[in-house]
């Protein structure tokens, strides 16, 4: 009898773990830089990284890891979100109770929900700061214009995700914030009313009905928001963020100034006819003589460790906050009794402050102007400055500082007038609505910022400095409006220095 098959079977059985491992990791253990480079290059999940990364990219003070932080928070949100879906029931009669169960009954439910909440805050903060970093280092310049656009899309998706998530607990807070949000979506009616065409053409009502599935917020709205929150928007964000990462590689890695690389050799040693890419290990056609081959490091371990550190920090921050501060849950939603004040999440409060002057301009017009303006930056400023340096050096920093002073004065000044003396309707009660739509604190701010930017462009003769001026104004306006609306707005959206001054009804 020949027992070779049995013998082979026995050997295979003993070795099965090893052969399984070898079938997954085709190259075996990576023990050299070359092997690690190959791993990055040939691994489906890691090939989104380049094999080598420039030393300049790894300097923490250049990126502050903000893009990685955004993605780390997104990863936390996906994981905790799936866990929350195990118990959450998107139905008007069950939603509130299922959140309560999560909070009080489900093991670790409260902690997971808090984590989800804090990671969401973290993601919004990281995304906004990441946008500011990319802007101030001039990293939107050619060839990275399109990646800036993708980033804008991701910003909108991030805000959309947080807006749709707000309603799901079906408590007073989310319900009334969504009433406000959906009425902003319906506010084009202000314009159609002015034009007198609302009975025939009412885009506001169409948007509202598609969003809510009804004229009021109920079962239909809840299931639609749920669908957007857990499927549509996360899938869209995942797809676009993949392209966002991929474009970083294809656009030549993160931006860096020319001086980050040693100057090319003055005299070429010899010029070969054929070049070998060698997985980005060697660049250019001339062999390097008398200098470091490249100013780069292998992504494994340097970049991967940096990313891991960012992930750990994001997890740590979320966990500490989630442990100490609970996500809010108010009374069950009651359509008859409004929350007063009904406040949106903090990152929408700047918009809500503008909405308190004109729903359409504050909620749709000005945000659209801001988004379009931001998106156009890389196409309107085509200067080839010192890319990859904060503020393009001293000149930009000076413009940014003066813009900060100017915009802070303008915003505080206009808010002071509006809060202390009221606005046009208080002075001229019969004023037609179209004047309010066109002239309100929000539009005045936009105009003041635009004029400042144009003035900088003319005096400094630079589109980049004009962009720095405008972007700084935008950030300062966003920050001050958000602050005032968060801290100083009370019932009926009136101004109070502290919450202790709120009237008691």
């Amino acid at each position, binding site marked *: 009898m020949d027992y070779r098959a049995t013998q082979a079977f026995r050997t295979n059985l003993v070795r099965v773990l090893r052969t399984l491992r070898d079938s997954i990791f085709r190259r075996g253990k990576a023990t050299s830089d070359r092997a690690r480079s190959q791993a990055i290059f040939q691994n489906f999940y890691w090939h989104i990284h380049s094999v080598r990364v420039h030393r300049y990219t790894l300097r923490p003070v250049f990126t502050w890891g903000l893009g990685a932080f955004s993605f780390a928070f997104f990863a936390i949100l996906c994981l905790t979100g799936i866990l929350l879906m195990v118990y959450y029931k998107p139905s008007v009669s069950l939603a509130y109770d299922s959140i309560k169960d999560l909070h009080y009954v489900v093991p670790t439910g409260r902690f997971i929900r808090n984590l989800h909440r804090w990671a969401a805050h973290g993601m919004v903060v990281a995304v906004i700061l990441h946008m500011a970093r990319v802007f101030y280092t001039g990293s939107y310049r050619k060839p990275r214009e399109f990646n800036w656009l993708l980033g804008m899309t991701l910003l909108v998706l991030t805000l959309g995700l947080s807006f749709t998530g707000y309603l799901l607990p079906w408590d007073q807070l989310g319900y009334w914030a969504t009433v406000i949000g959906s009425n902003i979506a319906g506010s084009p009616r202000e314009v159609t009313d002015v034009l007198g065409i609302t009975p025939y053409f009412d885009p506001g009502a169409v948007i509202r009905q598609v969003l809510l599935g009804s004229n009021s917020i109920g079962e239909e709205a809840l299931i639609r928001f749920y669908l957007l929150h857990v499927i549509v928007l996360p899938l869209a964000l995942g797809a676009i963020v993949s392209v966002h990462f991929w474009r970083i590689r294809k656009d030549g890695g993160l931006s860096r100034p020319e001086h980050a690389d040693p100057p090319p050799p003055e005299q070429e040693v010899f010029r070969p006819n054929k070049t070998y890419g060698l997985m980005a290990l060697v660049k250019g056609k001339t062999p390097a003589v008398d200098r470091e081959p490249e100013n780069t490091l292998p992504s494994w371990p340097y970049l991967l460790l940096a990313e891991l550190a960012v992930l750990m920090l994001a997890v740590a921050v979320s966990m500490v906050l989630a442990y100490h501060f609970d996500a809010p849950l108010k009374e069950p939603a009651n359509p008859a009794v409004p929350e007063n004040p009904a406040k949106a999440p903090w990152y929408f409060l700047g918009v809500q402050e503008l909405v308190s002057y004109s*729903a359409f301009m504050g909620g749709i017009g000005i945000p659209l102007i801001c988004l379009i303006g931001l998106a156009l930056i890389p196409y309107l400023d085509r200067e080839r400055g010192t890319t990859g340096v904060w503020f393009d050096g001293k000149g930009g920093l000076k413009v940014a500082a003066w813009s900060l002073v100017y915009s802070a004065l303008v915003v505080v000044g206009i808010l002071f007038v509006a809060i202390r003396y009221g606005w046009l*309707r208080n002075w001229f009660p019969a004023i037609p609505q179209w004047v309010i739509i066109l002239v309100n604190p929000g539009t005045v701010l936009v105009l003041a910022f635009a004029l400042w930017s144009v003035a900088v462009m003319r005096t400094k003769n630079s589109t980049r400095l004009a962009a720095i001026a405008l972007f700084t104004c935008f950030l300062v306006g966003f920050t001050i409006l958000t602050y005032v609306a968060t801290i100083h707005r009370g019932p009926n959206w009136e101004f109070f220095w502290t919450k202790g001054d709120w009237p008691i009804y």
Partner: protein
Amino acid sequence: MPPKRFEDPLPRRDFLGIAAMGSVVVTMSTALIGVLRLPKPAALPESASRFKIGFPDEFPPETHRKIEDRNVWIFRDALGFYAFSAICTHLGCVVTENDRVDSGGRVLSGPAPRGLDWLELSLAVDGSLMVDAGKTVNPGSRFNV
């Protein structure tokens, strides 16, 4: 050189190719628009917007009363009955007695783009007053029994 008998600005193969691509674009976009029609509801899942509020003589002259669970104000003055919605036209908050509107629902201050919506009143078969929160009437119009 004899003149070309037949100028062909668009070769036949190109025409077929363009026609094919065109039909793809038209078909797919029509299909997409058709499919996207789904989220816009045809029937709104809401309770009836018309409701009875009581008999006319329950509202003596100079009445002003809020129907709390319906968010509607009912008034009766020398000219007749009128009703307006308590839902603010700014962002849909519920207007209370001490808010910034007058007894005609006109905006006194604040960001509301227009006055409160005046609602249609009618008489039900049993003789009670009926409000239709889904139908607006011109501000200032009155309903007389």
